[in-house]
């Protein structure tokens, strides 16, 4: 369950950057091809944030669609999974988008 390590890392990084400020919302960017299950992240988020400055924060996950460029014919197109082939038949694709795993922004309560 790498989602637990990923989510723990989100909580750690936010705590490290913002100190003790109370966080009310966290927005993550998760690419559809990055191999992270969003429902697992949601589950882990509630567990990992308990008793921290992120406790009770709303989790927003922005999913990023996959895009690839064919190394053989140069075409670029949308991809839904890692098994997609180019229309020219090639499997040699460079992923342009869909592997994101980022903390986009957080919202904190002003005191």
């Amino acid at each position, binding site marked *: 369950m*790498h989602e*637990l390590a990923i989510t*723990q890392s989100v909580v750690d990084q936010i705590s490290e950057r913002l100190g003790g400020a109370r966080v009310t919302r966290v927005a993550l960017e998760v690419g559809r091809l990055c191999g*992270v299950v969003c429902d697992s992240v949601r589950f882990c988020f509630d567990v990992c944030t308990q008793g921290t400055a992120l406790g009770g924060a709303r989790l927003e996950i922005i999913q990023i669609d996959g895009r690839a460029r064919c190394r053989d014919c140069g075409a670029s197109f949308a991809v839904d999974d890692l098994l997609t082939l180019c229309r020219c038949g090639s499997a040699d694709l460079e992923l342009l988008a869909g592997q994101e795993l980022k903390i986009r922004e957080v919202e904190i309560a*002003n005191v």
Partner: protein
Amino acid sequence: MCSTCGCAEGARAVIVNPEGAKATSAHDAPHAPDHHHDATRAYEHSHPHPHLEEQHRTIRLEQDILAKNNRLAEGNRGWFAGRNIFAVNLMSAPGAGKTTLLERTIRDLGSELTISVIEGDQETPRDAERIRAAGARAVQINTGTGCHLDADMLSRALRALEPAPRSVVMIENVGNLVCPALFDLGESARVVIMSVTEGEDKPLKYPHMFRAADAMVLSKADLLPYLEFDHARCVEYARRVNPRLELFTLSAVRGTGLDAWYEWLRRRGAS
């Protein structure tokens, strides 16, 4: 959870060096020089968003979630490069034959290559003991509940192992085809092992792992006569997920098909 480096206490990995017979947990060992903490400040500004309540402030972070692991992995990569060490991250489902292949490789190549091993398992020092019995130095990482090795565990294990310059370090990751794919260790090459008993469509079912690998070992080839395993189809599936994958079909028990694997190790280890 440790507020200094973010290691989760519940998932603290324990490193066992059979030579020193001493177990170190995350915080007994001093942090590596590269295990420093991000001193950059959050880039803050207030957005007067009309839809937000007055007392809330949005802070743009745009921060890679794996940034810390990736930074430590780069530290390991530099450490290997500075010593001319070829480091291989071996990944597979549990029981695909990682340790058996390592034992055989150590016995066959031990006289020409210096090989040492870092063993990752959730529990027990058994695999490291097998490697030592085969004649190589080994350190065991027990991840506890952790399902993969990460760059921090590797850097701590390296300090316990102290591999020789111009040698080969084999890293046996925790048996798992999902999680290790996401965590860069700073290795020189990634090898995925699948045994012929796992079914030829494994690459399609776990595309992240096969896409992340440089080479694939199809192990336990001695069992092919007893199975309905379509070798050509397996190769086709693997290449579909990763056209750049180097492929080795071998049996570590019977000793067949090992030459190409050894040739690859020699070639990559020398460069």
